[in-house]
């Protein structure tokens, strides 16, 4: 096997050195009653070429563009990925290294993550950002637990317009903790009803996502004020950070903690993962932050260098008292996001965001004119809900036959929106495809 360098001679020499008669004998210390396995029932080894054929065939059984046009976002976005980014991200020194515990020979990863933290902070409008978390949902769960640690209060309020899956993950994390979660309902315009904050006792944090699950842009300033009025922290989450090329950053609108999903910053959708959990806050909370942080320092000759720092928050030092159990995070995804943000630059990022918005508006307006308006009046970014009065199922099926996925039907998530679907349009959708979609819906 080409991954196993040992020749029979090597094995014989090494066994002799170890003083053992056979490879099996290496396991002699294991008590018999731990009954060594019989052969595993697994497919026989494939050659590299058989594997290629097998995987090509499997991959061919999943629908992707251009064969199928998928107008679905809902936390996973289709953006163009530059060849130049893919090139540098394939460098073995980045891909095959471990967490940079030995900084002298890990400065590449360390500077790159320090740069990521900086750009992520500028994007979210926070003073500090962590090195990464698993994804947007775990980042939100960790953000809420962090707020509870900071405020020493036991209740969080989460908008019903936060991604339903993110809310389910929060529920999973909270289940054994005894902390409780209050849901903030939505207004007819598609935004969160902040008046629901009134009279919630023991409130540690209020969490609102913007653009929210319906694509609607929330009034984060009002949400921040509402939370602060109750001595609670305001947590702003997101699933489409490209929106901040156009919108004010959550941090600038008073969010104490900002978290979300960074997949759209240059990561392939990859059937949902790995993504990128982003999390940032005010510097005042830095010692309560979960997850890894890279800091700038100097070496003994005074040269600039970078290290993992504030490790006393982490499990390998603090064990059960750590701010989180996370160890391996999504470092290469953070690096990918940094490369992507740097490739676009300030102006490019804004322009790309504007284009996403404008293409989505083009479809939204077109569908409205075709008689399928959005149930929500609030402004949106690159996603929006549209209602099919005759019911979603029929239209959805018909379009599927035309190799078009008409977004995400909402019935399963919001019974009240059973005749609605959530559509997404990014820069990858050409005008003529949007025109075609409108035509098909009309017909």
């Amino acid at each position, binding site marked *: *096997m080409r991954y196993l360098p040992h020749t029979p001679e090597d094995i014989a020499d090494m*066994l002799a050195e170890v003083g053992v008669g056979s490879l099996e004998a290496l*396991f002699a210390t294991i008590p018999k009653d731990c009954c060594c396995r019989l052969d595993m029932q697994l497919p026989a080894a*494939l050659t590299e070429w058989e594997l290629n054929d097998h995987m090509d065939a499997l991959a*061919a059984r999943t629908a992707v563009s251009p064969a199928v046009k998928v107008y679905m976002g809902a936390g996973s976005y289709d953006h163009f990925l530059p060849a*130049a980014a893919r090139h540098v991200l394939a460098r073995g020194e980045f891909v095959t290294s471990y967490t940079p515990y030995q900084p002298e020979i890990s400065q590449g990863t360390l500077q790159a993550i320090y740069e990521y933290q900086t750009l992520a902070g500028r994007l979210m409008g926070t003073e500090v950002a962590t090195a990464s978390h698993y*994804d947007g949902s775990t980042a939100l769960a960790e953000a809420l637990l962090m707020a509870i640690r900071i405020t020493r209060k036991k209740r969080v309020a989460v908008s019903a317009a936060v991604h339903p899956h993110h809310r389910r993950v929060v529920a999973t994390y909270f289940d054994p903790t005894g902390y409780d979660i209050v849901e903030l309902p939505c207004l007819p315009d598609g935004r969160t009803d902040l008046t629901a904050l009134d009279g919630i006792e023991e409130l540690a944090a209020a969490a609102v996502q913007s653009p929210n699950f319906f694509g609607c842009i929330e009034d984060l300033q009002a949400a921040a004020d509402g939370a602060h009025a109750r001595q609670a922290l305001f947590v702003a989450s997101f699933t489409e950070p490209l929106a901040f090329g156009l919108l004010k950053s959550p941090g600038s609108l008073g969010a104490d903690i900002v978290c979300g999903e960074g997949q759209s910053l240059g990561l392939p959708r990859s059937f949902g993962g*790995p993504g990128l959990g982003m999390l940032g806050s005010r510097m005042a909370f830095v010692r309560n932050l979960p997850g890894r942080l890279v800091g700038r320092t100097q070496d003994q000759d005074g040269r600039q260098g970078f290290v993992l720092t504030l490790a006393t928050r982490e499990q390998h030092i603090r064990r059960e008292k750590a701010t989180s159990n996370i160890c391996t995070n999504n470092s290469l995804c953070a690096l990918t996001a940094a490369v992507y943000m740097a490739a676009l630059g*300030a102006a490019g990022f804004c322009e790309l965001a504007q284009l996403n918005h404008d293409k989505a508006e083009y479809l939204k307006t077109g569908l409205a004119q075709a008689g399928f308006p959005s149930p929500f009046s609030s402004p949106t970014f690159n996603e929006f809900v549209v209602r099919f009065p005759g019911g979603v199922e029929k239209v959805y099926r018909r379009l599927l036959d035309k190799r078009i996925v008409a977004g995400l039907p909402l019935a399963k998530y919001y019974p009240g929106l059973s005749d609605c679907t959530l559509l997404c349009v990014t820069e990858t959708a050409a005008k003529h495809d949007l025109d075609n979609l409108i035509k098909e819906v009309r017909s």
Partner: protein
Amino acid sequence: MTDSLGTTGLILNEPLLWEKGRKGRCGFSLPRRDVPVSALDPHLTGTGPDFPELSEVDLIRHYTRLSTWNFGVDTGTYPLGSCTMKYNPKTNERQAGLPGFAAAHPLLPPELAQGALALMHDLAGFLAEITGMDAVSLQPAAGAHGELTGMLLIYAYHRSQGAQRSKIIIPDTAHGTNPASAALCGYRPVPITSGAQGVLTAEVVAAVMDEETAGIMVTNPNTLGLFEENIRQITDIVHAKGGLVYCDGANMNAVMGIIDMKAIGIDVLHLNLHKTFSTPHGGGGPGSGPVCVHKRLEPFLPVPRVIKQGSTYTLSEEFPQSIGKLDTFHGHFGIMVRAYSYILSLGPAGLKKASQLAVLNANYVKEKLKETFHLAHDRPCMHECVLSDKNQAGHGVTTLDIAKRLMDYGFHPPTIYFPLVVPGAIMIEPTETESKEDLDRFIDAMQQIAREAAENPQLLHDAPHKSKVRRLDEVSAARKPCLAG
């Protein structure tokens, strides 16, 4: 070659991203605009993030230069204990990059995602077969996430039994994520010490196990690289009191095809696909930490689960006792593709061979170095062995000095100061993909360093000498944190 594997060469400095570039540049090909601009309500809009602006060549050089400051498995031997830094096969990257996988939306209707679902279904089956467990969830994003999932499963199990429990037994050799994950579930860790032999004794477990204790978290093989030989008695004791046994399977690389985890009494175990199954570490992730369970825990597994009906695959949420979701979608699918490719590339015989050779390599290094460096437990080890700086202490040389000096010899240092039970631990896990010559060079380097420790300790205190930067000031980094530029 008699001279050191490590040398120095021309390396380029590189400023921080925002010290580079010029306003007006863009390294991205902006798509053509084919729709009219439609303005957004100005009081919603901002100025956009302050990102540096670079050309494509600026970008390529920036990251190419940074990469040369890093040491990876592709660079050389990386015997980082407990991390299983085996070779990451390049064909796996090819597979994960196939558009049918990389461009697939996670919420596609199942009929449009059969390929991805089939892969997940079969990978879960492979992992069940490799561990001997009954069912698998691929959702956990890394090892610690798998531990949390395991704790949640145990929590849900006890609740279903009508009585919740408050404590969990954790040996002193455990990885830090174990107590941290237990704590997230509200369990109070009850520490126990491993015996003189470096393994747990039934007695210490029996002494603390009670009806208030949810169970035990064992790492097997443990972090001393030893097989917990009393595991059968231990699991019996825990089960007898109604507890469950969690196994941290981060060290599964030692026992593929050799140990049946269910047969030895494990109820739930997590795997690190980014260790045992060769997926790259990426400088700290992403990984994937599937949990494998005994059937009694299956009803509680995360949803959605992939179900095979005839020849088609669907996603089911119909598990009322499920603990729910652990991340937004299906977990780290891209990592699963790599692990699946690895398993198919090695097959059952190849996987078992990999474990055997991983154990052979560790024992070989142990035998060659135990005269020179103090060996915590002088007995046959599994995939790794734990030395220490005890013999060098006399010269004022520490494990840290030895680790830094190894860099000058062209090796990544082993894991140091872990497990905590061995003062000045030097935890060496060669993995099976290192050849005998590579190990012999590593052993030579360690022996030369031992000589240097006696003859010229300052050389070690000042190490590393060849890396782009030398020892860094971690103290002031933590005292006055500068976390963004």
